[in-house]
């Protein structure tokens, strides 16, 4: 073990290095694909630029504005313009929000990160606790209820869950505010934001948890049947020690890898939750940007999301390699 440790460390660093080098072409390809998709989409940014004014503007004026905004340029030219600006550190201006992309990101991304990380925390917590309990007491009343509920929630869209939660906890019981970042006139303070975060983060977490929960339950059930667990039982260890110290670690390995791959789902969930709860995050802006084919904002957000997925899967793989020496570090 002591002999193997430094080489293991090197292998993990090597894994990280290779992945990061690999990330560069991936990011280029993904952003190019985003531009291609935008060009193929049926949306025309001119409608967003004019708003209702498009219905009274003359064809000549619309054509002139299109030319001035560069909307008629080929997608290759537009991609080149954006990529060139990016290399000089300029993220460009968002047409759909009429402000610089960098400003959009600094204003909104922190709120999305807050929502998503707390939501993911809740999802992991729910999945681990309930997953372990249901596998341990398989077939018991709690298992039956939780499994049925998890399967039901898996089929309910996040926004329905959100409206239900608002009706119950905000309107029915009056425990929590309905939506927004703060009370309508309130200043941004820790207490205010924390109270307003509870409902959206819980809804996001709960909507993400069934899949994880069922996975933990299933792989723990598999682990409980393995030889080393039977061995531990034979040695007369207590049941909690058997489940938590011997079965759970084996079951957790694939769970850690899966978490990394869960990031895109989380972003999709965040879009719906942010819209329903009027959360001023970046996910709600994605919809507006997509409808207006707002290339600079869309491309930057795509880069961020791709980087998050790559980073998520890298962290998951590193964690797996650290937890289990048998895991190969692909090289």
């Amino acid at each position: 073990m002591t002999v193997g440790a430094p080489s293991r460390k090197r292998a993990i660093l090597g894994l990280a290095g290779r992945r990061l080098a690999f990330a560069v072409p991936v990011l280029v390809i993904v952003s190019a694909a985003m531009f291609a998709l935008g060009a193929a989409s049926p949306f025309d940014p001119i409608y967003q630029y004019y708003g209702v004014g498009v219905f009274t503007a003359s064809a000549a004026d619309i054509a002139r504005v299109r030319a001035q905004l560069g909307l008629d340029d080929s997608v290759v030219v537009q991609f080149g313009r954006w990529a060139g600006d990016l290399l000089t550190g300029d993220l460009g201006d968002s047409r759909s929000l009429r402000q610089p992309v960098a400003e959009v990101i600094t204003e909104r991304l922190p709120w999305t990160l807050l929502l998503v990380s707390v939501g993911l925390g809740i999802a992991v917590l729910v999945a681990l606790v309930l997953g372990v309990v249901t596998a341990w007491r398989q077939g018991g009343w709690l298992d039956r209820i939780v499994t049925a509920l998890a399967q039901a929630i898996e089929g309910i869209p996040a926004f329905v869950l959100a409206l239900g939660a608002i009706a119950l906890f905000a309107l029915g019981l009056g425990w929590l505010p309905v939506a927004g970042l703060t009370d309508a006139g309130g200043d941004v303070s820790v207490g205010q934001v924390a109270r307003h975060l509870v409902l959206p983060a819980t809804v996001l977490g709960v909507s993400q948890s069934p899949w994880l929960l069922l996975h933990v339950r299933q792989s723990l059930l598999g682990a409980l049947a393995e030889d080393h667990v039977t061995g531990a039982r034979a040695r007369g260890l207590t049941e909690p020690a058997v489940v938590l110290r011997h079965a759970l670690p084996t079951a957790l390995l694939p769970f850690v890898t899966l978490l990394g791959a869960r990031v895109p789902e989380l972003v999709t969930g965040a879009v719906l939750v942010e819209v329903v709860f009027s959360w001023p995050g970046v996910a709600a802006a994605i919809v507006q940007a997509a409808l207006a084919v707002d290339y600079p904002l869309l491309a930057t957000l795509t880069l961020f999301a791709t980087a998050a997925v790559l980073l998520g899967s890298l962290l998951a793989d590193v964690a797996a390699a650290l937890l289990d020496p048998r895991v190969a570090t692909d090289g």
Partner: protein
Amino acid sequence: MLTTSWRAVLLPVIVALTVLGTACSAPTAPGAAGDGAELVLADAYEDESLHPLMGYATDGASKIFDGLIRHDAQRVVQPALATEVPEASADGRSYTVALRDEVSFHDGSSFGAEDVVATYRTLLDPESVSPLTTEYAMISKVEQVDDRTVRFDLAFPYAPFPHKLVLGIVPSEAVAGGGPLEGSSFNSAPIGTGPFRLAEWRKGERMILESNESYWDGAPEVERLIVVFATDDNTRAQRMRSGEFDGTVLPPALAETFRGVDGYRLISHKSADYRTIMMPMNNPVTGDPGMRLALNYAANRQGMIDALLAGHGAPASNPIPEVLGDYAEPSAQFRHDPARAAQILDESGWVMGPDGTRAREGVPARFTLMYPASDTVRKDLAQAFTSDARALGVDIELEGLGWEAIEPRMGGDALVLGGGTPFDPDLVSYQLLHSSFAADGFNNPGSYSNPQVDAALDTGRQADQPADRVAAYQQFQRAYAADPAMVFLTFLEHTYVLRDSGWQGYRPIVDPHAHGVNWGPWWNLQDWKPTS
């Protein structure tokens, strides 16, 4: 700047660390809003820009800006930054505007003729890439006569010109650089002379406006106006019910759920916001005048209003709403008369076939009707119209599409179109029906051309005597009724919910197409007073 962005990043982190440890402390009681001189409104729509030259508040009633003129509750033009409503010169091609003295912008700089000139010149400068240039195409020149006087020269006589002067005036410094307006920081940090100044705009969530203490027309008593953006209709209704808002705009069916609820008031505004079935002249079916006339008699307008809009609408036969008073021509309205419709079709040669669909010279009475797919009201109206036409033996195929897909097909397929303003008949009818605007963007998309209609619209636009204008628009409607271009269905009513929150001063008004918290019950918010 650096400190603000750091705070923006740090605060969520601190919150993240504390949130899981925070117990659900008792929330502030619902109704915490509305204390003192504060008003909290919820809007379904958030402007991307607050720049008047980028399309913000083009119908006037902006809280942040003043135009040279404004409309009163009867929609009559009244002076705002002008000292009086300007009169046309003898040839109708020049308007000289005297400006109010001792007005200052929110940043303390004083308002003068140079600001008016800069605002209008920037609007007309192609380099600004303003989306409003077509709307102001009648202006050929703007000149500063002296410190307090501005002269507009027009390319052609244009009687409704004073209505155009609602455009918000921006300080000349804000547009000094020239170039495209879309990158200007003025879009999110506007400075006007209006009754309220922008204090904070948290994009995607809310905006705080504060009373302009030095407003030339008296500081508003509503000291803080908070506008919360909640795009989802259901969430907005729920938050309204929880007592978080003092008022909001809701679709008729949701608004009706507040009827009779203690502490709430349902307000319904008439509007000039029409919905019409646009008919292209180049289609072999809709191009036939007899077909268009028959469909106008076949449409059961009141039935649609009762069934689809919960009664919140008024029947429409042409773009001139009844609220325009003398301009509306009672004899030019279509009543629901299916028998007359069938008779017209018989007379124009559309013979009923064995399959229940009419045909003329081998052409079946069948056409496609497009509607914007995301608009449920237009979809419902399209379906109702289709069933009325079906009863007459005319087959309509519905297609819900995006505007991008609709636009290139407007010349050949019918479309559910909407728009309208209650201020002047020219503004709603000229570009929609005059042959000079045929197939020009979304203007007159069906390429309707009727010399009598053209002549009446031209007379109405250029006549300088009000009585002559009234006669011209009545003549226009009679000529249109004999050969209708479209099937106008209804003028929508806009519905709002208000909470009793200790303010008085609400005055009913007729809404333009635009609605939101600038319009509706809050159009004259600066005049509201506390009840006690």
